[in-house]
């Protein structure tokens, strides 16, 4: 898709400017605000090494004596640590920036994997039909009849038990992307299949077939572009879901280790100290997580209203 943009770039920009999508975006304050918040968070998270006052992965910069300091608006705060420190004396602001980066990385990675698997299988099921369809959809049905979170927890637990905690923590990012990616592909597959079924009897597909194109080319170059709008809509929701799933796994101790925390493992680590009154260690990362997920969800809601695709219900 992006390879041929150089010559057609201006017209694309014009098309975007004239589109209903842009028109409704200009009028929707919530969508603008959410996109702004989301972009700010993404930029802040990925430029964490530049923005963060300290490097939380560097043990030399951690001062255990400065642990559990409150954020700036509470008495007893240290000017050095704007949002206070966690139980290990790490600067909370820095560790949250780095943690958001980890969460986003896993969220995007897992959704990319889901989309790859789901779109491929969905296209195959919808376009080829017959046995392939029956097999893939039965598989998706079985997997969806368990909650995706349950699948992720079980797979995570088993992988961790098989490979040992040390190995698991070392490759935690990769593991989480794989686990969450594998747990949620049926969502994509079903959505794509539903729109492929609607597309495949249209004349342009017949035309392509009569021209003698191979199935693979018809599927990916002709049918797929016409199923993109539902894919966009569920992608936003799926990113939010993946971030929540990652947080849940980390909270259960099946995700990112505390030395390399995501937002979920920060919440887990802070939860142990909530009874002693240090609520900020757990609730500030929690608030960041909620703002992140909420902005994505609201954007998804807006996209769904605008694009109004035939989403798979139920």
């Amino acid at each position, binding site marked *: 898709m992006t390879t041929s943009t150089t010559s057609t770039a201006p017209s694309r920009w014009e098309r975007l400017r004239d589109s209903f999508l842009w028109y409704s975006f200009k009028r929707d304050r919530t969508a603008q605000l959410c996109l702004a918040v989301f972009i700010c968070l993404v930029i802040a998270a990925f430029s964490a090494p530049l923005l963060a006052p300290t490097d939380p992965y560097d043990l030399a910069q951690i001062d255990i004596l400065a642990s559990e300091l409150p954020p700036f608006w509470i008495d007893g705060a240290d000017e050095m640590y704007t949002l206070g420190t966690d139980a290990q004396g790490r600067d909370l602001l820095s560790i949250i920036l780095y943690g958001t980066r980890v969460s986003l990385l896993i969220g995007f990675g897992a959704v990319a994997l889901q989309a790859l698997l789901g779109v491929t299988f969905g296209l195959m099921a919808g376009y080829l039909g017959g046995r392939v369809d029956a097999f893939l959809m039965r598989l998706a049905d079985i997997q969806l009849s368990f909650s995706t979170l349950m699948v992720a927890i079980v797979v995570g637990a088993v992988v961790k038990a098989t490979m040992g905690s040390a190995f698991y923590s070392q490759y935690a990012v990769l593991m989480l992307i794989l686990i969450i990616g594998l747990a949620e592909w049926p969502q994509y597959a079903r959505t794509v299949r539903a729109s492929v079924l609607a597309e495949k009897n249209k004349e342009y597909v017949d035309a392509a077939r009569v021209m003698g194109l191979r199935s693979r080319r018809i599927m990916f170059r002709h049918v797929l572009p016409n199923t993109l709008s539902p894919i966009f809509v569920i992608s936003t929701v799926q990113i939010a879901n993946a971030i929540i799933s990652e947080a849940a796994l980390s909270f259960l101790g099946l995700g990112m280790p505390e030395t390399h925390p995501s937002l979920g493992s920060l919440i887990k680590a802070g939860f142990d100290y*909530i009874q002693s009154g240090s609520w900020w260690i757990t*609730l500030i990362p929690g608030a960041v997580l*909620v703002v992140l997920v909420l902005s994505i969800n609201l954007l998804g809601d807006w996209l769904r209203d605008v694009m109004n695709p035939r989403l798979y219900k139920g």
Partner: protein
Amino acid sequence: MIAFLIKRLMHAILVMFVISVLAFAIQDNLGDPVQQMVGQSVPESEREAIRERLGLNDPFLVQYVRFAKNAVQGDFGYSYFYREPALEVIARHLPATLELVFAATLIIVLLSVPIGVYSAIKPRSPISRFFMGASIIGISIPVFLTAIVLIQIFSIGITVSLFPEGTAWGAWLNGLLSTEGNMPSFGRGYDLVHVVGHWDTNLVTWNGLQHLVLPAVSLASIMLPLFIRLIRAEMMEVLQSEYVKYARAKGISMRRVYFVHALKNTMLPVITVGGVQIGTMVAYTILTETVFQWPGMGLMFLDAINHADIPLIVTYLMIVGVIFVVTNTIVDLIYGFVNPTVKLTGKPA
């Protein structure tokens, strides 16, 4: 109907077969049971003899058949950690989880139906807008975070000093926003009433109910927004339909149209989604029980993972598999019964 029933049962058996193979493969690949049984000094020849006697050298298929045969008879092996039959351990933890799910379901049903129906009837009213906004915020808060916030507010307590303490209104507002925090935040409490077998209930004593409230509310919080939105969407669709217009034109009271005519058809899809979601709640109980140290199956499962208690993990997977398969099958059957337009011989559309 019979054909549909048989088809569903076949499907259920197939799923259980897949789960059992997976569970057995896990058991087969995790750790060496002989190493867990004997000490360091036992020679290799002796170990080999034990392996032979226990049948661990048999082919995978033979071992699987043995495992399946025992499992069907309710024998899932011994938990390493509790040193008693794994099924027994699960049975002891099951009632706590079921009570939690029951209480959460009760909250969901009692709140989602009226709110969903109201916001469908009056989509533009400020109250509906508030609930719609609140529900998307609710979806965005992970269940464990809701639980932590509830603990902070109701069991630790918060002291607000945002407003000037000197003035009367400031002190009043501060007092209004602060909470005492006297709700229990972990465990099931001391005041359980024994019912039957392993079932001690939280539902009949004041102390028991107090312990149940926070976990149940957090568990409900994840599903409630979903159901409110679902009921609202379905109800709005139904209200557009011809038969509702006709009923209205006949002069039937609006209350009757809404709650008798429209609500019936609204609940159809809610039943399917609802049944599946009750199964999904099992997954969320793991999170809720971890936060509140609620001694149910979810907490037990997490402990089993940390102890590498493989027989217990496998048993839990099988039992949860059964719960999922049974709820899904029942939901499909109920749907077939209440919705005569479903082709019972095929898959319900």
